[in-house]
């Protein structure tokens, strides 16, 4: 019986052996405060934190079976890439932890990688992943973020944001005064500009629902489309816009608007003007419910 605990301990030690096989990373390179950095990793995690030094520090661990960590470039532009062998499917996950200048331009690509970026405020932030979740908090002027099945949790104060997923949910918050484009297939879209009036908002989905809470800039435009997902736009009572809603078999509602339905056959629509009608809002769904709420 005494051999059982010993065996269990041995098994446990063997099972965590790959973790010890990972190679620690500790690299530092100079980078201009507004330089650019590209990061790619197929499997594992990428974590980025902004700091106020003109350099990039890379720590973390290379997974067992990974070929090497490749760092190329100069002070203005750096590329950090985890290189896998030709048949690298058995390689262990790699964790990259980067500290980058706050105003750096950042481009991150991953496949099965969770990505967490906080504090950057450069001219652009591009993130692309397939199955990993993405968390981003910062103030890049422009952000272009996409995943396939991972969820997007974004808190951005930006001028222009473009987000896309297939089945992952998108939650976007932040003071965004310019253009927002959000697109999914089955994932839900939640956009909240914290009262900031967006100049342009486009949402589209197939079965995912979409909601927007925020304002509309003078003369701004909102377009929300879905096939079967619900649409809900929540705008201030001071809204000034011409609003058009259209549905084939779903429902439509907007304060004060008369919904037109043909006497025979499917379909419903409405046109209604709020305030001076300076902006334009269009909601279109095939079988979902499209709703405008003023509060």
């Amino acid at each position: 019986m005494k051999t059982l605990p010993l065996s269990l301990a041995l098994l446990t030690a063997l099972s965590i052996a790959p973790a010890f096989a990972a190679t620690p990373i500790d690299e530092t390179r100079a980078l201009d405060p507004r330089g650019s950095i590209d990061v790619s990793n197929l499997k594992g995690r990428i974590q980025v934190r902004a700091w106020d030094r003109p350099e990039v520090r890379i720590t973390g661990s290379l997974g067992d079976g990974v070929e090497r960590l490749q760092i190329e470039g100069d002070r203005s532009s750096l590329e950090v890439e985890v290189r896998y062998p030709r048949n690298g499917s058995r390689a262990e996950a790699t964790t990259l932890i980067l500290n980058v200048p706050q105003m750096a331009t950042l481009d991150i690509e991953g496949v099965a990688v969770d990505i967490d970026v906080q504090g950057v405020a450069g001219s652009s932030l591009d993130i692309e992943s397939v199955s990993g979740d993405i968390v981003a908090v910062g103030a890049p002027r422009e952000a272009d973020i996409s995943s396939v099945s991972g969820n997007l949790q974004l808190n951005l104060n930006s001028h222009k944001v473009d987000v896309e997923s297939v089945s992952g949910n998108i939650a976007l918050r932040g003071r965004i005064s310019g253009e927002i484009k959000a697109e999914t297939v089955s994932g839900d879209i939640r956009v909240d500009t914290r009262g900031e009036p967006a100049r342009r908002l486009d949402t589209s989905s197939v079965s995912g629902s979409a909601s927007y809470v925020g304002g509309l800039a003078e003369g701004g435009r909102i377009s929300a489309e879905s096939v079967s997902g619900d649409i809900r736009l929540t705008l201030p009572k001071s809204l000034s816009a011409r609003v058009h809603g259209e549905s084939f078999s779903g429902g439509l509602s907007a304060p004060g608007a008369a919904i037109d339905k043909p006497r025979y056959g499917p379909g419903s629509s409405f046109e209604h003007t709020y305030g001076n009608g300076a902006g334009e809002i269009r909601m279109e769904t095939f079988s979902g419910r499209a709703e405008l709420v003023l509060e």
Partner: protein
Amino acid sequence: MNDNRHDQDMPAALRMQLRALRTPEPPARELWPDIAARIAAQPQAAAAAPHRRTRLFPAIAAAAVLALAIGVGWQLRPPAAEPAQASATAAPAAPSAPLVIVADAMTREYRGALREVPAPRLATPGYDSLLELDASAAAVRDALVQAPDSVFLLQRLQHIHARRLALTRQLASA
């Protein structure tokens, strides 16, 4: 990051033509009083000629729209020798609406492009999303059959196909 996105979009000319189909063009002024006055002024027997002309214009317009859609569909058709693959999104029983014809031609075109890409392995991260995109394309195509003048459904279908092709390429190279 998404530089290829616009390249894979529907050709601009086609997009503009399809958009034009749904744009109503109301007359600059109320025409009915003049028409009614002319009808009243015509002898009963002669009234038939202008009546036929007024019905001719919508018929010509409808024929033009149909010809445009069929033309677009013809341009997008697959080579005759290529076997048509049964699928959830193509091969309708009787696709009569112009946009459905375009949708099915477009679907066949994208399927042809997909055959040029190595199939990703089942274990590849994101593979399930390919199946989800296929199911979504089928759902949108079904919706288009029910609402055959919905340009936004056709655009959505095109975008799903483009995403499917781009993702397949991405996963195949991963």
